[in-house]
Each structure stands twice: as structure tokens, then as C-alpha cells.
């Protein structure tokens, strides 16, 4: 019975991925991408990885889907249809073009098929290494938390997590660079729909509480800094949509401080441990629990701020051409 569920879920995931890439309209692709992310999250629950499922559903399907949806306004289907019409008028589709595409497509199909066989054989025959479960279980009492995934993320492999917070910040800087500095701060336009504003105001404290719960619950069960950060980031995104752009209201130095708080505190903590003669991010077992909670909270605040700012920046990108049209 359970094998049947897994088989159905596997087929669904593959089907959604295929449909997502084969869909004619861009909006179809984006919505199928949402569905694909959620199906993948279900697969992770089946594999016993609840933390990964929450992260996938929240960040990969939710946040990325919101960014894609926002991009749809830019690459609107009407525009692309117009362009295709224009192209069709300028150079009518010739049979030569389709013929010349046939050979590369055939080669690509053959290559992908071959690659699929090799990949299937490789994953099927991967030798059983035993994994690191036993090592993680043995060290769990010293880590200061009870949930093994949180212990690995914030204690055993804290260095990876620190680098990851840095990568998010780096992504934000790169988006600033791509968008231009003139997009940095813009006052929001208040949402006209009073119902929307009320719903946003109502769900803000609920989301905040739920995020705080996930953050604290990460100590004993699935949850933690990243899951909480996405919920808090969702607050920022919703406030932005409702016309209260958080980081345009706050003073600039305060926004920058919030963005770098998680990374900076983590780093200072690591160097303090090194000054004591321990390794980088080697928590003393007596204080590990409380230190991890502080680091998680600050990291969650920083990541939430970074996600909000990424969304706000990408959202404001599309408003620039209109200004150019009005000035020229």
C-alpha cells in the first residue's frame, strides 16, 4: 500500500516537472512549478525529511513562486504574443528552419536518454556507506539541542550554515548590482482594496507567532531558523504588497544592520570561541542550547530581511521603463 502511494507520488512529480517545462504559456509553467514544489515536499515527508519538506514548500515553492509570479507581470503573455506576431510577419516560418532543428533535437534526445540510463545505473548501484547517522546520534547530547537536523545545521556543520547566510547576502548584493542603485528606496503605493489591507494587517501577527513557534520548536522537532525566516519574510513581502515597504520606512543604517546581523553575530561568536582556544563554531556544551537559540533568532531575522529586500528589489525593477517613457 505504501509503495503504491510512493509510486503515485513519484509519477506525479515527474509528470508535473515535464508539464512545467512543456507548457505553452508562461503562466501555466509558473503555476505548475508551484505544484511541482509541493509534490516534491510531499515526497520528502514520505522520506522522513520533514525539515526539508517545510523548507521546500516555503522557500523553493513559495518564495521562488512568488518571484516568478511577479516576473509574469513583466514578461506578460500579451507582450510575447505581440512579439511573436511581429516576428511571424517579418519572417514567415520556413520549412528549412524546422528541418535544421531536427538533427540537434534528435542528438539531444539520444544524449539525454543515454545520460538517463547512466544516471539510473549510478544511483542504483551506489554502495552502502553506512552514513553518518551513528556519529550524529553519539554526539547529540553535547550539541545542546534534541533534534538531530538542527544539531547538524547549527552545531556540527555551523560553518556551512554561516556560509549559507553569506550566500543569501551575496545574492542580495548581486541583485542590487543588476538592478541599479536607483531602485534602492521607493515609497510604496498603498493598496486600494481595504479588504486586502485588513487581511494583511490581520495575518501579520499570526505569521509572526507561527514563525516564532517554528524557531523555538526547532530545538526538539522539525523547524528552525530557515523555516521561521521564510514566514517572517512573508510578513515583509505582504506588507510590501499592501503598500508599507518596511525597508523604505526604516533608516538606511538600521536596514543594513538588520541584514548583516545574523552573519556578523555568527562570525563574532566563532572568533570568540577561537580566542578561547577552541575551534571555530565549537560551542561549549554547557551553553550550547542558549547560544544556538540566539544565533538562530538573529539568523532568522537577517534572512527574513534579506528575502524581503530581494523581493522588493525585483518587484521594483519593472517600474523603471514606465519612468523612462514618461521622461523621454
Amino acid at each position: 500500500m505504501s509503495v503504491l502511494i510512493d509510486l503515485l507520488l513519484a509519477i506525479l512529480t515527474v509528470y508535473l516537472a515535464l508539464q512545467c517545462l512543456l507548457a505553452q504559456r508562461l503562466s501555466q509553467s509558473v503555476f505548475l512549478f508551484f505544484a511541482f514544489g509541493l509534490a516534491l515536499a510531499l515526497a520528502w515527508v514520505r522520506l522522513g525529511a520533514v525539515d526539508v519538506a517545510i523548507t521546500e514548500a516555503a522557500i523553493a515553492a513559495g518564495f521562488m513562486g512568488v518571484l516568478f509570479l511577479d516576473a509574469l507581470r513583466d514578461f506578460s503573455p500579451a507582450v510575447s504574443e505581440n512579439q511573436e506576431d511581429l516576428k511571424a510577419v517579418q519572417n514567415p516560418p520556413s520549412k528549412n528552419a524546422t528541418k535544421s532543428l531536427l538533427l540537434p533535437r534528435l542528438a539531444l534526445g539520444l544524449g539525454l536518454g543515454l545520460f538517463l540510463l547512466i544516471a539510473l545505473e549510478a544511483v542504483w548501484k551506489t554502495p552502502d556507506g553506512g552514513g553518518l547517522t551513528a556519529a550524529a546520534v553519539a554526539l547529540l547530547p553535547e550539541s545542546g539541542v534534541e533534534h538531530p537536523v538542527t544539531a547538524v545545521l547549527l552545531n556540527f556543520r555551523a560553518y556551512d550554515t554561516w556560509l549559507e547566510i553569506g550566500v543569501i547576502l551575496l545574492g542580495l548584493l548581486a541583485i542590487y548590482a543588476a538592478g541599479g542603485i536607483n531602485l534602492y528606496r521607493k515609497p510604496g503605493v498603498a493598496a486600494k482594496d481595504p479588504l486586502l489591507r485588513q487581511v494583511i494587517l490581520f495575518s501579520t501577527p499570526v505569521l509572526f507567532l507561527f514563525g516564532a513557534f517554528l524557531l523555538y520548536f526547532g530545538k526538539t522537532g522539525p523547524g528552525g531558523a530557515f523555516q521561521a525566516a521564510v514566514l517572517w519574510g512573508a510578513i515583509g513581502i505582504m506588507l510590501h504588497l499592501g503598500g508599507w515597504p518596511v525597508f523604505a520606512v526604516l533608516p538606511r543604517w538600521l536596514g543594513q544592520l538588520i541584514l548583516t546581523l545574523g552573519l556578523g553575530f555568527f562570525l563574532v561568536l566563532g572568533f570568540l570561541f577561537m580566542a578561547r582556544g577552541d575551534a571555530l563554531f565549537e560551542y561549549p556544551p554547557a551553553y550550547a542550547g542558549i547560544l544556538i537559540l540566539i544565533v538562530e533568532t538573529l539568523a532568522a531575522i537577517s534572512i527574513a530581511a534579506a528575502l524581503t529586500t530581494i523581493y522588493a528589489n525585483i518587484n521594483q525593477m519593472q517600474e523603471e521603463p514606465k519612468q523612462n517613457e514618461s521622461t523621454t
Partner: protein
Amino acid sequence: METYQIYILTSAVLFVIGMGGVFMARHFIKKIIATIIMGGGVFLCFVSFAQRDALTFADPVPHALVITGIVVAVASAAFALALARRIYQLTGEESFTNDK
């Protein structure tokens, strides 16, 4: 057939679908989605092996790596999306074309 074996095979299929999408898709957004699907295949492979090596609970190290990986993948995809929108703004093109 064990649960993890089903998902290991699925992960290989997903990776290949994503790779085909990266080559075949024309629009920027579809290319970005294809890379995320490719990444999903890799993560699924990791988590499947974590389930195989489970004792009382699944191996936590691949789980932590996958959580890290998802966030990094999303950060890079967001950057790619920002670049795509910038290219669209400046040139009006939605895909890489050989015309010019």
C-alpha cells in the same frame, strides 16, 4: 521495492528532465525553472540515501546539506531572475536568440 529506491530512480529522471529543459526551453523563466528542477533531482537523491542509512531516524547530515542547498539554489535563482528581468528591460528580449 523499498521507498527510497523509488525516489532514487525518480531523482535521476528529474535531473534528466531538468537538463533537457535547460537545453530546450527558450524563455528565461523556463530555463531558470529547469535548473531548479535539476537541483530538485539532486536533493531527492541525497534525501533518499539519508533514508537508506536511517537508524532510529534518517541520516541528519544530508538533510542539513539539502536545506542549505535549497536556500542557496533559491538565492542564485533569484539573482538569475533579476538578470533576466534586467535584460528584458534593456533589450526587450525574452530568450537567447541567434538572430543578432
